[in-house]
């Protein structure tokens, strides 16, 4: 194992991972009804290919990929399509969903297995990954197939598996690495074969020694290195991870492939393995259900489309005094208005905050220009200035301060003594100006 690596700036929030870090992943009960959004990924929404009344099986394709940057969706239960309509989603938006009533049988569609998966042609692997609806499971949900098809002029020489899991509270990736290290490594090897690279890396924050040990053991004898990373947010952001492990700086507004690297989440690597080896599409994922406001925190394998309310009730329900439910982690997750929204491919956690954990964000005061946000911004921006320009609606000037390099990690807001809604200011400015 090599030395602890990291990037510049960033923050050290309280991690609270002890709530669920030791809890093994349990299979969630089969949902009675699932709401499967046609858009669970970055890019064009999938196009529905089933109609109301159709019988479907678990794993059956129900929405087709609609473009290069897009992803198909599959039914996560067997049963009957009862509605196709817009429903509220965990992102705070509304979107079209296919609603399927489970028949309780969980009858799988026929999966094409490949026991000799390591001998498959790279093009074939790519095709399987695309057709399995695999997207980045770290949260951003970028279609994995696209990452595996870089333009010819971009030479990729390394793949990094992201096991940093720098969001406080979340332990889904942690549990996967402890419970399925061999499968993750097989997934990584498939990815390496597809892109024709010989270097593989797995980056893990050093607060997960059991995960580091498990992965070290699983990679022994292979051209794959496990790197322990400093515990610092946002260590798991692609650009920060690449800087930490390979000391390469992705150009501003560029992509990891510009420096010859592809980054995939540990969950994604596992999904790749399961899709190629067993023909299993992405219909379930590990979700960390945590926070002081939930009765029985834990890690659960949840079918995509299961309602958050359903998952919460399986974890004993909300405690008295639960005030906020967040899809994702506390730094970048979305607070929920209603709990009748589905778990999607990108849902890494359900965080229920108690009134003790809740930090009031009702009011804020003017920027006192203390510069703390500048000291922590991992992208080297001036969030103070950007927030003031956005607040005063001088949107056209924000370009001069590289607004569009902000990836909304929230570090600036975390340290702001005036409690300013920094991420909100950034989003507002982005919506009002052109990159």
């Amino acid at each position, binding site marked *: 194992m090599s030395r602890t690596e990291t990037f510049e700036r960033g923050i050290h929030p309280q991690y609270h991972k002890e709530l669920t870090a030791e809890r093994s992943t349990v299979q969630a009960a089969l949902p009675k009804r699932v709401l499967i959004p046609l858009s669970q990924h970055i890019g064009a929404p999938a196009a529905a290919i089933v109609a109301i009344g159709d019988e479907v099986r678990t794993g059956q394709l129900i929405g087709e990929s609609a473009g290069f940057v897009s992803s198909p969706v599959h039914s996560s239960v067997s049963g009957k399509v009862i509605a196709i309509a817009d429903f509220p989603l965990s992102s705070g938006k509304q979107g079209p969903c296919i609603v399927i009533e489970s028949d309780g049988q969980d009858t799988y569609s026929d999966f094409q297995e490949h026991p000799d998966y390591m001998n498959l042609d790279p093009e074939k692997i790519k095709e399987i990954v695309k057709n399995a609806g695999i997207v980045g499971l770290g949260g951003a949900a970028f279609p994995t197939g696209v990452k595996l098809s870089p333009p010819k002029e971009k030479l990729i020489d390394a793949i990094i598996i992201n096991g940093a899991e720098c969001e406080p509270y979340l332990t889904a990736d942690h549990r996967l690495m402890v419970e399925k290290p061999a499968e993750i490594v097989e997934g990584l090897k498939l990815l390496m074969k597809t892109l024709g690279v010989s270097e593989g890396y797995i980056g893990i924050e050093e607060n997960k020694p059991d995960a580091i040990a498990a992965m070290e053991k699983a990679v022994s004898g292979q051209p794959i290195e496990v790197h322990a990373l400093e515990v610092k947010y946002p260590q798991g952001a692609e650009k920060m991870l690449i*800087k930490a492990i390979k000391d390469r700086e992705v*150009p501003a507004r560029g992509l990891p492939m510009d420096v010859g690297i592809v980054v995939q989440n540990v969950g994604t690597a596992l999904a790749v393995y399961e899709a190629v080896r067993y023909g299993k599409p992405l219909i379930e994922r590990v979700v960390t259900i945590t926070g002081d406001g939930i009765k029985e925190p834990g890690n659960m394998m949840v079918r995509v489309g299961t309602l958050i309310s359903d998952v919460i009730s399986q974890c004993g329900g909300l405690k008295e005094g639960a005030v906020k439910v967040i899809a994702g982690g*506390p730094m970048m997750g979305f607070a929920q208005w209603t*709990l009748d929204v589905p778990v999607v491919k990108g849902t890494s956690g359900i965080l229920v905050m108690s009134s003790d954990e809740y930090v009031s964000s009702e009011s804020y005061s003017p920027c006192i220009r203390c510069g703390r946000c500048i000291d922590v911004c991992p992208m080297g921006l001036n969030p*103070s200035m950007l927030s003031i320009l956005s607040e005063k609606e001088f949107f056209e000037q924000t370009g001069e301060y590289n607004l569009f*390099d902000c990836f909304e990690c929230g570090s600036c807001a975390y*340290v702001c*003594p*005036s409690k300013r809604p920094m991420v909100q200011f950034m989003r507002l400015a982005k919506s009002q100006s052109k990159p």
Partner: protein
Amino acid sequence: MAVKNKENKLIVSVSPHVRDGESVGRIMWSVNLALLPAFIMAVYYFGPRAVYVTGLSILAAVLTEHFFQKGIGRPSTIHDGSAVLTGLLLGLNLPASVPFYIPIAGSFFVITIVKMLFGGLGYNVFNPALMGRAFLLITWPKAMTIWYEPTAKFVGMDATTTATPLGVLKEEGLPKLIQMFGDKSDMYLGMLSGNTAGSLGETSALALLVGALFLMARRYITWHIPVSFLGTVALFAWVFGGEGFFNGDPLIHVLSGGLFLGAFFMATDYVTCPTVRKGQIIFGIGCGAITMLIRLWGGFPEGVMFAVLLMNCFAPLIDRSVKPELFGAVKEQKQ
């Protein structure tokens, strides 16, 4: 910025959903606390008048801010400690000898004109305390330049008057200044401890340094402005401060006058200095250079106040020209 769903009682607000415990109030009260050693030394050397003068300026600052905000229908923000800080800094910038109306007039002026009319905390262009001192110096030039001897005795209010070290240096030269203290090491010791004439809070370099180190340990201020400011003053003093070139005594200029108070507590005022660290170094160098231009060749013996106020004007420009280093900034392509 947060809404609550009345049915399920859930609160919705934008990410992030956790924050560190820092607040404007905690920062401001910490700076007040950091000035406590300097205040104690002021009381030690100048007696009850130190309490009287700073007390009046703090009281006037707090009351002015409170009633100004009430008057325009805004919630009072006096609990955030920034009005107290302005009053305290202004008080520490005044001679012990001033009549009661000077701290009151100064605080009233800075809170209304310099702070609130510009929009309140966060929007003022100039350092309030220094603007107050400048205002008072111009309005009551005589009263603002009567310096009491630091008696270190808690006796009557009418101590003997004397000149400040920088005043002596300007009018009568270095030998006279050393003679005042006895010898050179006594002079440095006097300047470190605060046993010299000057504004209440500026004389004890050591007490100010203790407070400044506390602020640095808490990371409320960084080295960038103080070090570049002090360094530039020392450099100028060494090169131009003696007979001929490279013959001056940097220590005299660094330890005397309002430099420590200015460099650690006023040039570092968040609102009126650049936010980007590299820019802060430029700001500090500018402050140091202007200070020495005034001290060596200007009409006043001391230049810290005007130097910081002048550089305050440049802070927005510096922030616009000196940006933090963007992650992945594309390096200049070779043609």
